[in-house]
């Protein structure tokens, strides 16, 4: 951990399960990472990788009777989140911890003005009076770049465009000065020119308020634009972690390599894209051993039989692949204690 100070968020060994027709499905399986104060961490993955469920587990927003955290620990700002009462967690949520989603229309209440919705949060969490709360709402709308905030504060969500609604969501999320903002695909439903506006806004907010951000996305370009560090998830596990620069310039895990090479890019001219064969596995039937092995060009015997260790590499990077292990086929299992050191 750089700096030695306690991280803002420390997730270790997180396991989240969902009930399925036969038994349970592990949507998150042993996820661990730290987040420093003010840092922007990207979590990238495809559908079913567990990136959104990781976020919902941190927020405590898994629906009762549905998903459940069954293992691991989440420490946030000194508190052990999983041992808090649901009341205490609710106190935290909206105040120190805030989240925005892909489709702002489904998270806004259509019968209240945006001002009322922002004011509600600050009245609950900051104990502000009616007038002060309204003033705060206008101030927040101004902060997120909504033109004419004194008038817009009385608008209903349907009167705003998609980009404006996402700005309102961000205003609401930031209204109580959270220490951490989790953004789950916040620009996926937006057009590319509006996406550029929202990314610029998030960059600006980091600079001005120092809010830590977890950015969840399937778009590697969005990560490169915004994040300091990135986690790559595949089939409910972390396969690679590193600084954005190191990971994009020199990916170590075969899945990350394949993902970066298969993307069509504006800055390249290629006749043919590389492709990762096969498709993303189904959570009800994760492949044994390394979950990427059926699609991996480097797959060996051990990859289908044993889960690869997470290997620490230079520059604070980690990658979970047997290729990083000096593997002697004569030996049943390599010495993992040595590897992890």
């Amino acid at each position, binding site marked *: 951990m750089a700096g030695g100070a306690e991280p803002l968020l420390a997730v270790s060994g997180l396991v989240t399960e969902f009930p399925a027709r036969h038994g349970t499905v592990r949507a998150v399986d042993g996820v661990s990472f730290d987040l420093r104060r003010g840092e922007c961490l990207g979590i990238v993955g495809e559908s079913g990788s567990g990136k959104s469920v990781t976020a919902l587990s941190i927020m405590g927003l898994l629906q009762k009777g549905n998903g459940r955290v069954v293992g691991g620990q989440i420490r946030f700002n000194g508190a052990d989140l999983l041992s808090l009462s649901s009341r205490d967690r609710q106190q935290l949520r909206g105040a120190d911890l805030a989240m925005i989603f892909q489709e702002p229309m489904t998270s806004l209440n259509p019968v209240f003005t945006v001002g009322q919705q922002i004011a509600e949060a600050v009245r609950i969490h900051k104990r502000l009076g009616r007038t002060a709360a309204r003033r705060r709402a206008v101030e927040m709308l101004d902060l997120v770049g909504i033109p004419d905030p004194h008038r817009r504060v009385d608008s209903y969500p349907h009167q705003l*465009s998609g980009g404006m609604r996402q700005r309102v969501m961000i205003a609401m999320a930031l209204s109580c000065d959270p220490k951490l903002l989790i953004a789950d695909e916040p620009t996926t439903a937006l057009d590319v020119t*509006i996406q550029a506006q929202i990314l610029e806004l998030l960059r600006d907010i980091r600079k001005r308020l120092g809010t830590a951000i977890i950015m969840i996305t399937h778009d590697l370009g969005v990560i490169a634009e915004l994040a300091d560090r990135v986690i790559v998830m595949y089939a409910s596990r972390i396969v690679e972690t590193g600084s954005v620069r190191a990971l*994009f310039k020199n990916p170590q895990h075969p899945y990350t390599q394949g993902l970066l090479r298969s*993307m*069509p890019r*504006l800055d390249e*001219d290629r006749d043919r894209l590389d492709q990762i064969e096969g*498709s993303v596995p189904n959570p009800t039937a994760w492949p044994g051993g390394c979950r990427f092995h059926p699609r991996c060009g480097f797959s060996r015997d051990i990859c289908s039989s044993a889960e690869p260790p997470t290997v620490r590499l230079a520059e604070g990077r980690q990658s979970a692949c047997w290729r990083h292990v000096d593997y002697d086929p004569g030996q049943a299992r390599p010495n993992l204690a040595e590897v992890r050191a």
Partner: protein
Amino acid sequence: MTDAGPLLVAEDLRKHFPAKTGALFAGHDTVRAVDGVSFTIERGRTLALVGESGCGKSTVSRLVLRLIEPTDGRVMFDGRDLTKLSAEALRKARQDFQMVFQDPYASLSPRERVSDIIAEPLRVHNAVDGRRAQRDRVVELLERVGLSAWHGDRFPHQFSGGQRQRIGIARAIALNPKLVVADEPVSALDVSVQSQVINLLSDLQVEYGIAYLFVAHDLAVVKHIADTVAVMYLGRIVEIAEKRALFARPHHPYTQALLSAVPNPDPDARRSQIVLAGDVPSPTRVPSGCRFHTRCPIAQEICRRVDPAPQTVADDHAVACHFAKPHPIPADRPAGADRA
């Protein structure tokens, strides 16, 4: 059959929809979804239509197939005016142009086996003689798109998104069409599967000489697959050019903004340099003069008054802007470069 000349010529296509406005005292406005669009698709080549939501690109794709009737303009396909064909003649002509949809979940009937889905166009157009020939053709198509014969006995829900899109493609090429209209065919797919489908479409084009009208919002995908790119804004084509010219020397300020807004997966790259203010205006209230002037960073007085006509700036490169000038975007967008 005329095999000379372009495969498809769209001439001044227009589609205006009536739209109700106001909740109580309803008036009628016109949505000018497509407002004077012309382009040409050469045989075996790909034209990409790009633009943001509401620009009219999907409406154009439906006009080209005559799934909806144009308000004005015509579509010449293989030398014939599609807009004038009788229902029966149009049904016959449809063998030659097929469609692949964005959502492979919604465009395949959930109750039909995959072999029946793929065989349907063969049956409708009596394209093969007998059940055996039909079965052989279905197996051939399945294998051509990277599936296996036994997949034919399954139902769509038993497939992943990428596999379903392969099924949709097999159905589209069953009758050896000359044109396939693909509306956002990879945007619902996972990143690792997108490239498989893009490569498949490229291979099929080389093998069967299919022309594509490729409708997409993702410029990186378009750069990969297109020969010619048309950029649409509010019902109009604002710039059309051969792919390399468009990406290397975009002339229209909207094209330039669109290109610079694409997040670049290179952390050392220069950050977005042109962030457009505001939103796309509603197509019921198209701005006067140049439609883009309300968001344009270089708009002048004339732009508010005069609708710019497309002008040719180079071979096969036309731009509708009063102040069009080339704006090279460096291919590598080097680190440390200044913001413009």
